[in-house]
């Protein structure tokens, strides 16, 4: 498909949409789907048929509309109204609203800060396109960036543009994407590979899932541009098996793109060829670590190996390999299309662009948001998130999953960027944000994440394998009221030792939840140890008062 054909496909698709008298967009993101949106779609179609409205009403299944807390969501284009909490039995009410007054269904205010404060770049198509139809993506400027790159830019130009945009890895550590690309581009090897890391495993994080489910072609386009820039001809998407919908949609997207000549050999009639294979994980969190991911793609046991050599020099089968996160690759097409300076202008001095976050926990508006870097936590939690439900009091927000930390109230006005988060002992991470109110016990939170790290440790290196288990054991002692001050100091010793000596990022960052809660909520730990009470009333505290048993 060349640019002309692309444009005619886009025009045709746009005409098709304009010709539809009344288009209903039903959110089928996993959140809404679990609230019954699949049954709602079916009901809407059936009822429209029965009422003879078939010709005028088109029911389309789109990706995440954002406000997961109020799902299922339905957008009616003709009246420009968003309805929330549309249970499958309310299909008739939606159809009624097309001709008259809406009754029995709740209108969702799209002017509320949750929508108004967002800046959607990676999620620009979510809720608009049908992920299984490539035409739908093309109609919203899809694959235009790829064809532009192939026709007008040299690989070095592409790397320069990405460098200029200031984009940093969205997987967690924030490594400059342009630098990574240029390293792989300059590395010598018989073959090169591009890998998309879709092994999103942090508890409370579902950004990558949404991008892969709702806009799979965006990921493919980003990978193809990356492959052109670094000189790769083959790519892999590594998705965890727990995302069946994402796997299905990516598979469909790859075959559609191949059929249209946008993937495969001689893309758009040029000499550039690039093919993509899907690799499905087997349920190991550690496979999100790049060297473990490489081992897993090669069919070996998913364990990390010491770096250097970095995958950019020696990755898949010893060849230079570019590994980027889903969201990073999802940002590529808009950067090329709208220009690097445009992207660089969004955000702060060191963290450019936008970031997708998943708001979960004790917050009114649970959902998926995309905001510019540098926004404050207060704006995210209280304006966009709508604050704490049921009159609760904010206690902390956990970012970065098991590798991150808890940020207390005094830092609510801190701008959200890579450096600031690191300064307060947390990390950006992949973008999970768990809001906690006064009913959460910080010891319990630390123990939860330590249990996660313990069961996800691969067991290769001793500090992570035994250290996480020992820390979990000590935290359990604290949570049951069986700990002594000696246990607490042992815990702190282990934190610094495991952080400094572990082989990979999992072990090196596993102590973070403990360290950050100890830093800001030491009182709570002391209450557990010295007074043997859990202030939040969460921990079991089963050990008898005053008796230090050794669990």
């Amino acid at each position: 498909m060349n640019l002309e054909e692309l444009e005619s496909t886009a025009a045709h698709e746009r005409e098709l949409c304009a010709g539809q008298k009344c288009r209903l967009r039903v959110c089928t993101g996993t959140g809404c789907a679990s609230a019954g949106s699949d049954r709602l779609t079916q009901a809407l179609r059936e009822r429209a048929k029965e009422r003879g409205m078939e010709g005028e009403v088109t029911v389309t299944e789109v990706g995440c509309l954002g406000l997961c807390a109020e799902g299922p969501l339905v957008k009616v284009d003709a009246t420009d109204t968003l309805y929330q909490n549309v249970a499958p039995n309310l299909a008739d009410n939606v159809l009624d609203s097309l001709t008259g007054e809406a009754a029995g269904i709740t209108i969702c205010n799209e002017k509320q800060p949750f929508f108004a404060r967002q800046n959607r770049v990676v999620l620009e198509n979510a809720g608009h396109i049908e992920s299984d139809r490539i035409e739908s993506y093309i109609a919203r400027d899809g694959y235009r960036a790829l064809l532009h790159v192939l026709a007008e830019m040299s690989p070095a130009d592409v790397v320069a543009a990405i460098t200029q945009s200031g984009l940093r890895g969205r997987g967690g550590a924030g490594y400059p994407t342009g630098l990574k690309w240029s390293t792989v581009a300059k590395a010598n090897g018989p073959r090169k590979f591009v890998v998309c890391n879709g092994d999103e495993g942090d508890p409370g994080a579902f950004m990558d899932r949404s991008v892969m489910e709702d806009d799979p072609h965006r990921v493919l386009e980003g990978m193809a541009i990356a492959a052109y820039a670094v000189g790769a001809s083959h790519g892999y998407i590594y998705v965890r098996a727990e995302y069946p919908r994402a796997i299905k949609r990516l598979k469909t997207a790859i075959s559609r793109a191949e059929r249209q000549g946008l993937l495969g050999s001689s893309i758009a009639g040029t000499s550039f060829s690039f093919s993509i294979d899907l690799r499905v994980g087997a349920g190991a969190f550690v496979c999100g670590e790049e060297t473990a991911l490489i081992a897993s793609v090669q069919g070996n046991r998913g364990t990390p190996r010491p770096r250097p050599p970095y995958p950019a020099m020696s990755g898949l089968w010893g060849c230079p390999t570019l590994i980027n996160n889903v969201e990073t690759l999802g940002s590529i097409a808009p950067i090329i299309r709208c220009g690097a300076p445009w992207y660089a202008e969004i955000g702060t001095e060191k963290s450019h662009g936008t970031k997708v976050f998943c708001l979960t926990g004790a917050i009114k508006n649970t959902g998926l948001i995309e905001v510019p870097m540098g926004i404050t936590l207060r704006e995210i939690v209280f304006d966009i998130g709508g604050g704490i439900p049921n009159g609760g009091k904010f206690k902390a927000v956990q970012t970065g999953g098991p590798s991150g930390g808890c940020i207390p109230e005094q830092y609510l006005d801190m701008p959200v960027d890579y450096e600031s988060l690191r300064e307060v002992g947390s990390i950006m991470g992949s973008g999970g944000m768990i809001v906690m109110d006064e009913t959460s016990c910080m010891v319990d939170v630390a123990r939860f994440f330590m249990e996660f790290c313990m069961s996800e440790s691969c067991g290769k290196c001793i500090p992570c394998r035994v250290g996480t288990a020992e820390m979990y054991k000590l935290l359990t002692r604290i949570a049951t009221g069986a700990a002594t001050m000696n246990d607490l100091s042992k815990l702190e010793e282990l934190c610094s030792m495991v952080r400094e000596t572990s082989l990979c990022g999992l072990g090196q960052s596993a102590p973070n939840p403990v360290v950050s809660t100890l830093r800001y909520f030491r009182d709570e730990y002391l209450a557990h140890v010295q007074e043997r009470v859990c202030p939040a009333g969460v921990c079991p505290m089963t050990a008898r008062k005053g008796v230090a048993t050794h669990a």
Partner: protein
Amino acid sequence: MPETLTNTEVVTLTINGQEVSARTDETIMEVAEEQGIRIPALCHISGLSDVGACRLCVVEIQGSPRLQPACVTRVSEGMTVTTHNDRLKAHRRTIVEMLFAERNHVCSVCVSNGHCDLQNLAVECGMQEVTLPYLAPSLQVDASHKRFVMDPNRCVMCTRCVRVCDEIEGAHTWDIMGRGVDSRVITDLGKPWGESDTCTSCGKCVQVCPTGALFEKGVSVAEMTKRRQFLPYLKTMREVQK
């Protein structure tokens, strides 16, 4: 494995304040050994590939934010390495302590008492007591093989047996099952050792095992001395083949 460098250069680096020369295909561990500096290690054994897993050999490299394992880190020009200081000593002691706390290491009843790498490391690293809570799961001993016994309670998961079986014997009988603290070495996808189809009963795994986890049948307390004389020859043979 890092690819073999064909054009090796000679560089100068500093180890513990002493200037030394080395080839760029050498690791810090190899260069330190040449200089008579002993860096504690467990998963590393000369003659097998290195995995950098036990973390005992971590050293400080000036300018590197992280500690690096000496067994897999190659030297470079102007590198400044510290192999021993208080911080590294404390870390090494804790690692050994972790191993003692992880499973069941009771020297007084062990076949390897007096000839055990773990026991020697405890002495070397100055570990005098176990201050961490014992995890000590109760694991079943596999005595199904006609000549050898595997006692997972004494295993430290160094994977020497896995590597020697794969790299030297070529049988790949041993592998790892499970993950984290629940990982175990297994024979043939978890079959009892005696029923293994691939095991050639060569016994190399027993000889490289650092503890009393793998031992010959018939030995009693402190009687299991390991014979590792074959490894240097195999190492030389491999180097000639390179």
